[in-house]
C-alpha cells in the first residue's frame, strides 16, 4: 500500500488528483476511468476540507491506495468532524439548477463515478473513506465470468 499525507488545503487538490491518477494508471485502468477517479477524489478532498475540517489548514488528508490489475482502491482519512453520508440529501439532478441547493453534488459525483463508496468513523482514527474503481477491462471480464 502506498500512502502520503497532504495538507488539507485547496492548493493540495492538484497533487491529490495526480497521486490517484498515477495509481489508476498503474492499475491499468482505462482513460475514462482515470478521469472519473480524478473527479471523485477531488470531490472527496474538497468535502473533507469544507465539511470535516470546516476550512483550510486545519489538518491533513491522508491518502492511500491499493493497486491490483484493473482495480484501484482509494483510501482517504481525516481527523475532522465525523461525516455521516446519510445526512446529505441526494440532489435531484432533474430539477432546474436555479432552484437547487449547492450541497450534495460532490457525494453524488463520488457515488456515480466509483464502483463502491464507503464511509466509516472512529473517535481514534477519524473519518475513513474507501472508494473502489474497477476498470473497463476487469469489469468486462467479471461480466463474462458471471455469464
Amino acid at each position, binding site marked *: 500500500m502506498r500512502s502520503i499525507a497532504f495538507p488539507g488545503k485547496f492548493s493540495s487538490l492538484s497533487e491529490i488528483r495526480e497521486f490517484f491518477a498515477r495509481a489508476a494508471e498503474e492499475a491499468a485502468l482505462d482513460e475514462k476511468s482515470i478521469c472519473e477517479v480524478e473527479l471523485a477524489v477531488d470531490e472527496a478532498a474538497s468535502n473533507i476540507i469544507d465539511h470535516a475540517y470546516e476550512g483550510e489548514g486545519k489538518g491533513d488528508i491522508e491518502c492511500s491506495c491499493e493497486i491490483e490489475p484493473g482495480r484501484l482502491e482509494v483510501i482517504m482519512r481525516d481527523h475532522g468532524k465525523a461525516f455521516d453520508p446519510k445526512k446529505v440529501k441526494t440532489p435531484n439532478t432533474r430539477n432546474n*439548477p436555479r432552484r437547487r441547493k449547492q450541497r450534495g453534488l460532490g457525494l453524488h459525483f463520488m457515488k456515480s463515478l466509483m464502483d463502491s463508496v464507503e464511509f466509516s468513523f472512529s473517535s481514534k482514527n477519524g473519518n475513513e473513506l474507501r472508494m473502489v474503481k474497477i476498470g473497463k477491462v476487469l469489469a468486462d471480464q467479471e461480466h463474462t465470468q458471471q455469464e
Partner: protein
Amino acid sequence: MEILSTALKRCVLININGRIDSETAPHLQKALNALIDEGNYKLVLDLSKVDFISSAGLWVLVNAQKKCKRFNRGEVVLASISQRIHAALDLAGFIPYFKVFEDTAKAVGSF
C-alpha cells in the same frame, strides 16, 4: 488557471485555460462577477483549454448563468467543451441549462 476576456460587438468572449476546482473556482467567480457587474450579460465561455472541472467549478457557471438570464438580459453559452467537461455537466444535470456550441465562432454568432 488563466482567464482572458475579449469584448466583441454583441458579447464578451472568455477564454479559460487550466483546471477549475475548489482552489481556482473562486477566481473564476470573481472574474465573471466583475464582467456581469459592468453590464455584460452575453457571455461566451471557451472551455477548449479546460482540462478539469469539479462541482465547485460547475456551480460557478450556474451562478453566472442565473445572473445573466435575469430579466432576459442575456445568457452564458459554452463553446468547445471536451467530452470530460460534458460528462461532468451531464452528471450534475446542468446540460439543459446551457447552450453548448462546438466552436467559439458558432457560440459568438448565436448572439
